[in-house]
């Protein structure tokens, strides 16, 4: 270690010129703010020495809102004005929020963009406003701890957050008056927290295993010369520590033969007992679970829970995380043995069984020295320090990927992928489309995100129209749609008709969409429903083809049927048309294909007649040298 460090003039900032920047982990249950001081990242505490800020905001009639522990105290007695878990509402529409059901005891009202608004004594509040109030509290804490105004913040988001959720998070920061230096994916932040890149010798592939209460994220990163490159990200957004509690509670119920129809209080009792038992077994090998205070009429004897028994109950749930991990390794084209470091994030990675299983999977020790609740904020602080320009020379660089594929709606409700998931960002891609009907002068552009093949199964991000396309024959216009995703993972879409230069563009600002569970389903289902998707796709394709053929023949019959065909010939085609329409309205793509073929056969002669006829017309009255 050098005794004296001499900096080149102008190369490194003097301490008092250091720009103040923070990393913010805006979490579902609690949030944190962290900063780099004297070369070390640390989370910042309030005046009472508390680091975790509960993500709870209470609105009052004529006062500023309360944030954190003060607000949390009123979750029960002032439930309607005290908002928790607002992260689950970010970038969501009123319909999604209704599906969250009883877990959200607020009075919702829809605003004109379909965004849910919470009716409080201090007026209607959007999730973006509530998040902004949490951010304001964190920024204030940052400014008073660091003693000055902040130049900006790095705010973390779950890797599986879609464009709408990212945009809502950025909007909240804007509302709170804080400059967003970057939106950073939580697992990427965790990888950075350990400062592995500072050791020159250190290079290799890192896995970040992030198991929270309700979600599981796995990211595979490569580290080389100070660059962290995300190779793939995946997971299961409906898998977490809450599932452990439910499995334990169900076992207790069966062991003591408690009837399956439980009231809310009884369910809560079992879950609380499960959680307590789970935590105790981190220190001891066996514990007695006591049913004292059971809210129902019956009484139940104590129940012994051993670590072995608990492991048996947790293993099927951990198996799911292990499978998702293997799948993501395959996406990253990395073998298990190639992983050099494993970073553990999220409260549920405190479970000894989880640690055992993950260490067993990778056959090596885990990185657990940093508190799994704080590791994300600490990584964000390091990135904020770099982005604010407080370091010089070969700096840390984070290269992230797009978490969910982006595409456009095409004929028949199908999604045409424009950018695949796990593509490094920033990225720009263009795709060309054409018109479907003769004389079409406008085209609706519908932007989607997700892994499924049908529009209805993906998240709708935005719709806009490209108008003023010059009237041309179907298929003659060339419309180029360009997607650009920036380093925050935010999308901008533009469209241009190439022959005329007519342009339209939109910054994707969605206001409604799917619930977290649907997002989870979107990801999970893409793995399991490949077969369904394929046959659904074939069906849609055949339907589109049938419609196109049907339309063309109807038009041709209207124009030339009477002139070129006998009434008997017309009848044959019309009969076949009825069979085609009947098949098209069914669900068997083979049947539609067959009728399309029959239709083509039945109308072949007619098509040939029209062709001859149109050549005759075109040639009539022209001299040879005009041709």
């Amino acid at each position, binding site marked *: 270690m050098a005794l004296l460090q001499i900096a080149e003039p102008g190369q490194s900032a003097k301490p008092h010129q250091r720009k103040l920047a923070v990393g913010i982990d805006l979490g579902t249950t609690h949030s944190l703010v962290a900063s780099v001081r004297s070369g070390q990242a640390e989370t910042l505490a309030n005046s009472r020495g508390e680091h975790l800020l509960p993500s709870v905001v209470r609105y009052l009639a004529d006062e500023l809102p309360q944030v954190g522990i003060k607000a949390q105290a009123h979750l029960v007695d002032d439930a309607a004005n005290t908002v928790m878990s607002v992260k689950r509402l970010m970038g969501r529409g009123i319909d999604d929020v209704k599906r969250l059901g009883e877990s959200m005891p607020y009075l919702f009202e829809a605003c004109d963009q379909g965004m849910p608004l919470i009716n409080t004594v201090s007026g209607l509040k959007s999730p973006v406003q509530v998040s902004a109030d949490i951010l304001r509290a964190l920024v204030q804490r940052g400014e008073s701890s660091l003693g000055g105004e902040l130049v900006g913040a790095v705010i973390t988001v779950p890797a599986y957050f879609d464009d709408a959720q990212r945009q809502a998070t950025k909007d909240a920061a804007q509302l709170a008056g804080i400059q967003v230096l970057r939106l950073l994916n939580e697992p990427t932040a965790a990888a950075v927290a350990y400062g592995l890149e500072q050791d020159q010798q250190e290079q290799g592939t890192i896995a970040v295993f992030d198991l929270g209460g309700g979600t599981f994220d796995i990211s595979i990163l490569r580290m080389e010369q100070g660059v962290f490159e995300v190779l793939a990200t995946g997971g299961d957004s409906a898998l977490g520590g809450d599932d452990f509690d439910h499995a334990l509670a169900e076992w207790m119920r069966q062991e003591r033969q408690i009837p399956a129809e439980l009231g809310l209080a009884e369910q809560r009792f079992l879950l609380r007992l499960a959680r307590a038992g789970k935590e105790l077994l981190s220190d001891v090998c066996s514990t007695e679970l006591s049913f004292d205070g059971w809210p129902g009429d019956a009484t139940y004897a104590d129940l012994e829970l051993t670590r072995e028994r608990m492991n048996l109950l947790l293993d099927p749930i951990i198996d799911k995380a292990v499978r998702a991990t293997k799948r993501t390794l395959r996406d990253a084209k990395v073998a298990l043995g190639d992983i050099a470091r494993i970073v553990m994030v999220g409260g549920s990675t405190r479970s000894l069984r989880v640690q055992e299983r993950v260490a067993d999977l990778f056959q090596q020790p885990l990185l657990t020295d940093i508190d799994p609740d704080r590791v994300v904020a600490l990584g964000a602080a390091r990135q904020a320090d770099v982005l*604010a320009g407080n370091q010089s020379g070969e700096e840390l660089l984070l290269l992230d990927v797009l978490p969910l594929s982006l595409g456009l709606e095409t004929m028949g409700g199908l999604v045409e992928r424009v950018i695949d998931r796990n593509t490094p960002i920033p*990225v720009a891609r263009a795709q060309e489309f054409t018109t479907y009907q003769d004389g079409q002068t406008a085209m609706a552009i519908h932007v989607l995100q997700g892994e499924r093949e049908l529009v209805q199964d993906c998240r709708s991000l935005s719709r806009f129209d490209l108008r003023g396309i010059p009237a041309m024959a179907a298929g003659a216009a060339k419309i180029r749609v360009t997607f650009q995703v920036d380093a925050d993972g935010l999308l901008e879409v533009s469209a241009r008709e190439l022959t005329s230069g007519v342009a339209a563009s939109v910054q994707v600002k969605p206001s409604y969409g799917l619930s977290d569970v649907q997002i989870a389903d979107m990801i999970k289902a893409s793995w399991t429903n490949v077969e369904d998707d394929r046959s659904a796709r074939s069906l849609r394709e055949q339907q589109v083809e049938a419609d196109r053929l049907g339309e063309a023949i109807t038009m041709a019959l209207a124009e030339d049927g009477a002139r070129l065909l006998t009434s008997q010939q017309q009848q044959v085609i019309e009969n076949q048309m009825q069979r085609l329409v009947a098949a098209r309205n069914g669900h068997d793509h083979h049947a539609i294909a067959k009728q399309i073929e029959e239709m083509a056969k039945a109308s072949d002669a007619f098509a040939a007649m029209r062709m001859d006829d149109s050549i005759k017309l075109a040639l009539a009255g022209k001299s040879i040298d005009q041709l």
Partner: protein
Amino acid sequence: MDISQDYFSCYGLSCDFAVDSVALRQSHRQLQQQHHPDRFVSKSDSDQRRAVQITAYLNQAYATLSEPLKRGIYLLQLQGMDPLAPTNTQMPMDFLLQQIELRESLEEMSQAQDPETQMDSMSSRLQHQASQLESEFAQAYGSSNFEIAETSVRKLQFIVKLQQQLDALEGALLD
């Protein structure tokens, strides 16, 4: 940084099928260190937008040059050819028959007694074919036989698609 130049020039490489993947990755890293939007956070809006454009260009360039199939197609496009044109469908009959046979054995594989061994053997068969086609392409392209090069790259596309289907099947079976 000129984002209208061809992908080879931006990494200082010659327009050739043979690419040193380690050197390519290192120059890609260096260029990203220099041009990534993270380096322009405190700069003007137009500088930031430009950084996004340049990095998107670099990501596209790297993705194209680091995969043999994409690299081959790109090299032909630089010669004004369009190997992926939908009109371009003629393939030698023996190759097509072989493809049909491979596809059939892929379909039967999911019901096989010992799918893993079969998948492994097909995978190495495909890899062998791919590397053969790649050297065929390199030779043809190097001696400016672009039609022959085009046939090789289109065959390679068939092989790569089969490999992807095999990977997907492997993923589904191992889950």
